[in-house]
């Protein structure tokens, strides 16, 4: 029997979390818009467009970097507000949560009344969130209902009405349902979008048409994802009926002899716990779709949160959720978030504001509440993200937090004739790491940068390029400085460079750049020189001075 689910959805949550929902603002991740405020939407900015496109639509748009931790932290008051209604809240992702509606609805006097009260409570906890509420049988139908609702009018699908509610909807809602957790680390099934595309081309444009197919045929043609699509489209929950309760001995508990106050060591410990849990589950061929994370302090304060992800929680996704939960709990709620605004009414829904915890954490427990058979995931054969890529992306995010945005950089091709100008560096956080072709040579949209660059030195190139050129003395055999005339003639063969004897040399290769621009005009000549100790150097002469630019180390 499918459960009644109430879904609370705060549209464009990242903008609200950043506290910019009243301005024309967008939140960017990897140079693409992940969320925008209502005002930004009105000026034509779409989710998924590039930063430049957004700026073209609206030049004075406020740009905010995406920070999933901030989203989660500031979502904490919302979760607490909803917690006042029901004992257990499933947080799907910051911005969306579901609760079981059957029991509480009767207590609050009907589903409509409950939906209204939940929406009010969320609005009080996070002003400006414009939360919408949907109630239906099953998670999928409930999520869609919430996305069709408006803040003043919740959408309630009558019991047993989910299949009829879903049938006339276009199949692209399948991808939308997966997209609701696509931004989390584990991601939704990436091929659901492909499947939707294929279904449309095959003429199955409505969810009802998919539901009418035999699941056997969908399995034969599309594999397990076809079955998932069928299950979603027919309004049955994502959870297969054969799902069973996990044995309690699968719980992973860690007791700390000494209370821990900071998040970092806890997350570190959570990582090893999550790995253990994931290994236990994998050994049983299972995957966890709902995880209960419990933390307790020395003074008996307790944070218990259930995390739900229809596609299954991997170890990395578990750790991320622990960090979200603990961040919000340990440090108190939302720094730099929507809840910064003084809201006197916050206590109304029982969401009393606390300033973090009063003692260290002594217990951390992971309990898989819902599991299902793991039907596996096929990694891409060519292209796509590999496991190594995922890990590197996580490490880049961590490093950026450790040393700052400008200290973690990736190369981009710029073009030029001198070793120092051919490649530039951009902060890794601002580059789209999934689209490296944008950074490669010749991929620049600017034709001038793509080259060719006549006059550039042929391979091999110097491996050591000094960030700042070093001034050196170049003398001829008589000990007088070597000069290069305006016509590119050398006064005498160079004999020593900074005191070392020259064994062979070549040059000058003159470069005259940007003669049309007085400020950026450069005129110089290049030399390659091998010294008696076997080192080769690239020197330039500019403004009558010799500079060491690079060495072939």
């Amino acid at each position, binding site marked *: 029997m499918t459960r009644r689910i109430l879904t609370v959805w705060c549209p464009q949550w990242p903008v609200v979390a950043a506290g910019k929902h009243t301005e024309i603002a967008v939140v960017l991740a990897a140079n693409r818009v992940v969320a925008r405020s209502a005002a930004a939407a009105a000026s034509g900015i779409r989710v998924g467009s590039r930063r430049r496109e957004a700026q073209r639509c609206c030049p004075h748009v406020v740009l905010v970097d995406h920070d999933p931790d901030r989203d989660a932290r500031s979502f904490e008051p919302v979760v607490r507000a909803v917690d006042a209604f029901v004992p257990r809240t499933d947080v799907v992702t910051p911005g969306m949560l579901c609760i079981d509606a059957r029991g509480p609805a009767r207590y609050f006097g009907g589903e409509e009344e409950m939906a209204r009260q939940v929406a009010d409570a969320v609005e009080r906890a996070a002003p400006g969130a414009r939360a919408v509420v949907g109630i239906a049988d099953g998670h999928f139908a409930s999520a869609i209902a919430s996305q069709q609702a408006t803040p003043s009018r919740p959408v309630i699908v009558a019991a047993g009405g989910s299949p009829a509610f879903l049938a006339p909807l276009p199949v692209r809602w399948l991808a939308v349902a997966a997209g609701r957790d696509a931004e989390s680390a584990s991601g939704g099934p990436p091929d659901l979008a492909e499947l939707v595309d294929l279904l449309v081309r095959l003429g199955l444009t409505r969810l009802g048409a998919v539901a009418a197919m035999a699941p056997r045929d969908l399995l034969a043609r599309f594999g397990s994802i076809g079955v998932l699509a069928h299950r979603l489209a027919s309004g049955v929950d994502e959870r297969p009926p054969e799902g069973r309760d996990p044995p309690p001995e699968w719980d992973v508990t860690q007791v700390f002899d000494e209370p821990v106050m900071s998040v970092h*060591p806890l997350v570190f410990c959570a990582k090893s716990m999550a790995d253990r849990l994931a290994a236990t589950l994998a050994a049983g061929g299972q995957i966890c779709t709902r995880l209960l994370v419990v933390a307790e302090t020395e003074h008996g304060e307790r944070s218990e949160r259930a995390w739900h992800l229809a596609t299954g929680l991997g170890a990395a996704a578990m750790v991320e959720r622990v960090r979200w939960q603990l961040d919000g709990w340990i440090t108190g709620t939302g720094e730099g978030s929507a809840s910064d605004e003084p809201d006197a009414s916050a206590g109304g829904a029982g969401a009393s504001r606390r300033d973090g915890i009063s003692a260290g954490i002594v217990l951390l427990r992971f309990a898989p509440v819902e599991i299902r058979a793991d039907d596996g995931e096929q990694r891409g054969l060519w292209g796509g993200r590999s496991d190594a890529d995922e890990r590197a992306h996580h490490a880049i995010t961590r490093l950026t937090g*450790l040393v700052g945005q400008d200290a973690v950089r990736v190369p981009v091709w710029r073009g030029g004739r001198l070793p120092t100008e051919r*490649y530039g560096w951009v902060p890794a956080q601002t580059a789209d790491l999934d689209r490296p072709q944008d*950074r490669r040579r010749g991929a620049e949209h600017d034709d001038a940068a793509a080259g060719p660059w006549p006059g550039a030195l042929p391979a091999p*190139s110097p*491996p050591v390029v000094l960030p700042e050129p070093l001034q050196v003395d170049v003398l001829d055999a008589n000990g007088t400085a070597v000069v290069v005339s305006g016509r590119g003639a050398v006064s005498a063969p160079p004999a020593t460079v900074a005191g070392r004897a020259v064994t062979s*040399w070549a040059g000058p290769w003159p470069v005259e750049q940007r003669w049309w621009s007085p400020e950026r005009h450069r005129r110089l000549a290049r030399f390659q020189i091998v010294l008696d100790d076997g080192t*080769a150097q690239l020197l330039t002469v500019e403004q009558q001075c010799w500079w060491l630019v690079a060495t072939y180390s």
Partner: protein
Amino acid sequence: MATPSSLATIADHTRAGVAAVAASSLAGERVLPVDEVLGNLFERPGAVGLVRGQVVHCGGVAPLSLALAVAAGAARAGAWLAVVDIASLGLDAAVEMGVPLERLVAVESGPARNWAEVVGAVADGFELVVTAPPRSVTASMARKVHQRLRARGVVMLMLGDHRSAAPSELADIELCATSPIWDGLGAGNGHLRARRVTISASGRRMPHRRSVDVLLPGPSGRLEAAGGEVIALANEDLAS
């Protein structure tokens, strides 16, 4: 605050988890591929390649070229490469050496105290690290980093800049490029074309020193085997 005993629990955990992961990995996954020109230096019973978790010290006349050449083989096979605290990396040379730039990330650690922390964080996500430990890194700090790298199966290519002496003791393999001969440059004519060097490898688990003659870089900028004809070409060039 976290106290020593809780930190010890955490450390125990990590170690246990890591050991479990390490034990489950297959023998073939314990090595990263290297360019076949260097195969002779990295040959061991059963496999050829960079053993995960090892520290390779690149020294001699061409530390950076050597590190790039060693890293290129693994990076081409899909490994990510982090370059820590090397502001002077010439990317053209890296590309010519065969390092895919889309999997290269440069990190600056800032104050020296941070170096160990940054390399530790790098170890969580990258398979290759090229770095030159700052002089202020103590031997014990370097050992700690080495332990972390070994647990994570990360290969560290340490540049043998004479800036720091202590950490070079950590190296499992010491590569040294000697007797460079540049080819292509005359007295006012030609351009640098190739450099012939002898690379020798020695290490703790190597009974005797091995060496190989290579072109580092070759005419295309890549690492190439030093064949007989190339020597002839070099002689001809020198004669002209």
